């Protein structure tokens, strides 16, 4: 934001008006608060300027940025002193959001001995694979061509002599219903479910035409062994624990309060 843009910020106007209203009420404190202009602050403002303008701030520009920062800082402190932050649900939501981000990024738990295994067992549905198929196929535009090819193959002809060119892959591994229907069109998985493994069968109809299918393996719905997916489980575990930690954090905070519900 250009420094001049600050003058158009409604929040600042609001604060300025608030300041004026309360000025009669204010007293010069005995111990004046300190505002320290650190080198780190200068660097931060200079970097921000470079990010926004692509230019390196001159000494005069930097002084102007610091000047603006200082004005903003005293208004900010005064607004806090007057409790204006407590009146505003945007500030409220932003603070809650920031706390949430901090809680999430700072509480990445490391599982104790056996904890990952327990988490895996408790959420076993998430690590259970649906029925999947590993298969080869031959593609034909016409049903009769597919049927004729199947008859020839059953008579002993080599399968690789048949099939028409296609952008589809000649073989697919470990494909479940969602994948199959996206690749071949709706209803393909239901037709594969009627086939058995180990021979050329079909024709099976797709959005493209007709297919002779050789299923190598029907992989039944199965639980994925923990060994191959420890990293994934760890991520899920950490995410779940983070959410739980946030809930617990809120619960703990709630314990500090007495909640009074007034009768309506």
């Amino acid at each position, binding site marked *: *934001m250009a420094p001049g*843009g600050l003058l158009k*910020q*409604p*929040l600042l106007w*609001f604060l300025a008006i608030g300041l004026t209203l309360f000025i009669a009420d204010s007293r010069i404190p005995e111990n004046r608060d300190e505002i320290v202009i650190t080198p780190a602050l200068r660097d931060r403002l200079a970097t*921000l300027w*470079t*990010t*926004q303008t*692509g230019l390196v701030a001159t000494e005069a520009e930097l002084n102007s940025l610091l000047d603006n920062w200082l004005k903003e800082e005293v208004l900010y402190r005064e607004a806090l002193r007057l409790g204006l932050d407590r*009146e*505003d*649900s*945007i*500030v409220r*939501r*932003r603070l809650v*959001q920031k706390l949430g*981000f901090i809680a999430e990024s700072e509480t990445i738990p490391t599982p104790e001995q056996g904890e990952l295994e327990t988490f895996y067992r408790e*959420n076993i*549905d*998430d*690590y*259970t*694979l*649906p029925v*999947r198929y*590993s*298969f*080869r196929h031959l593609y034909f*535009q016409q049903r009769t061509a597919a049927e004729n090819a199947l008859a020839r193959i059953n008579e002993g002809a080599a399968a690789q002599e048949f099939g028409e*060119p*296609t*952008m*589809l*892959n*000649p*073989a*697919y*591994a*470990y494909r*479940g219903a*969602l994948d199959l*229907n*996206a*690749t071949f*069109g*709706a209803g393909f998985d239901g037709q594969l479910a009627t086939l058995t493994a180990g021979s050329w069968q079909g024709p099976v109809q*797709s*959005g*493209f035409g007709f297919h002779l299918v050789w299923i*190598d*393996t029907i992989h039944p719905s199965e639980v*994925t*062994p923990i060994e*191959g*997916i420890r990293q*994934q489980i760890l991520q*899920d575990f950490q995410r779940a624990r983070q959410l739980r930690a946030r809930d617990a954090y809120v619960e703990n905070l709630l314990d500090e309060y007495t909640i009074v519900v007034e009768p309506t």
Partner: protein
Amino acid sequence: MAKLSYPVSALACAAVLSACSDNTSSVPETPEVSAAPAPAAEAAPAQTAGYSALRNAYFGDLHVHTMYSFDAFIFGTTSSPDDAYEFAKGGSITHPAGFEMQLQVPLDFYGVTDHAFYIGVLREMANPNSEISRHPVAAGMSTLGGSVERGAKFQEILAFMRSEDGLEINDPVIRKSAWDDIIAAANRHNDPGNFTTFIGYEYTASAPDRGNLHRNVIFRGDVGPELPFSRLDSSNPEDLWNWMDGNRAQGIESLAIPHNSNGSNGRMFMLTDNAGRPLDDAYANQRMRNEPLVEISQVKGTSDTHPALSPNDEWADFEIMPLRVATNLYSEPNGGYVRQAYLNGLKMQAEEGFNPYKFGVIGSSDTHNATYAGEEHDYWSKVGLNDATPVLRGSVPLAEPTPEGELYRDTYYDTWSAAGLAGVWAEENTRSSIYDAFRRKETFGTSGTRMKVRFFGGYELPAADDPDMLAQAYAGGVPMGGDLLAETDRSPGFIAWVAKDPNGANLERLQIIKGWVDDGEAREEVYDIACSVGTVDPETHRCPDNGARVDISDCGITQGVGAAELRAAWQDPDFDPDQHAFYYVRGLENPTCRWSTWDAIRAGVDPHPDLQPTIQERVWSSPIWLTPAQL
């Protein structure tokens, strides 16, 4: 947890595959292979299960508005970026008008792109406890009614935003909060190998005449800038590029994708810069560094070409949206369409040695419902309660004619389109792989269908039907988005290949569109190169009619006509080694009912006679550019 079962299972499947390859005891019987074996000894980093050196097609939407966009919120959209990503993975969202929106086939990649200016602000105005709800222009925001009240309030706020006082409500705290949530949602849903998300936003600038200069900015990584650069920072896109260059220097890589050039009143692809000065190589370099892609199709129409610009292209009159965006003002076609921009770019290349318009294409939806556009037979349009019903969008007559005797609502929503998907050829479904495909322009756009298109050009191409075609074509030529240097004595070869959407209509024909510069004149020609029935007439370059028809009374289509795939090798019959040229592929489906016809059938009325009853869904590839050998 049920909704999580697919992605988690798929990931687990990925892990199984990699575990299998480490563990000889359980090698899968059918290793997944592409149409041809991958080049051997290609050292690659850690790969996901679907990795293919010959690249897979992935479909996505890079233009999505949620509750954080000022207009989407007032149109009734309360779904968040999180909700939108869940939708893209196969979940459902309830439209503000009450019906469910769900994809038949989930998307592979997705980017939420809310408007940067006033991001999150209108939503806060509707919160009666917020400070900003007390601003005079926020009056009534927490009690918005139906589409008429919403429309009036929208116009009022829009006018205020455009006034000198507009900045009063561009609250940085609100914007920061929304932006951080958008980044967090994108990172949370990114799932390498299964589903890719991109951090992004829309830069919503307009010219003083309301010509549309909008761009979507897409980031490569998982870190975004502090706040997005908006039209309130500058309405000059060149300033956006400066900002992007600055970010890039600090390690934040992004690209900008212009959209709705059709509604730019000729300003998206001008022959001058924003200040009216002639273009130069510095402008061209900066533009191409930041804008390698353009959105060619979305709900607000297509931007391939216009009948006035391509009078000899019989398919040019397709889903034309004739107005400047969000106005009733006519939009000048000259300077607003992709093909003409390619031609002007060639001309500049030939005459001045630079080309600012050497971009690839994608499609996307521009949904303001935090979802997608829907399909022709299940159309959701895109502005919430404003166009939620057939009557509101002008496809079905009003209950009673207007006092002026109009039978239909006077609206521009009837020029909109159930359109727009982005396609890429990438090794795997990860951010880096897909983003790199954007950068090399190995991309294509569709009118919403999931047609796939391959396109290669070169001097060492294999036969089109070679079983090892893909590997040899990558080795001996360039894919879409690439450059070819012409040889003086021979014409390069091209291979184009398109496959239908397995859940859509059959294919009608495959075309190559050529543009070139001849004695300073920009020229174009459309060549049919493969037909679903018969062969191409060498004189007219046209396929015969394949006989596919649509029954407008029930949207039935002729069965058994059309192809599942079309593939052809092609050489330019008019090749001239001294000419600059570009070539891109257009694939056409058989005709099907337009959404407005589906709306009418369901309502039991005749289709609106002023609207096209049918459309031919299509795919456009990014071009291959040909540069003369001797300059």
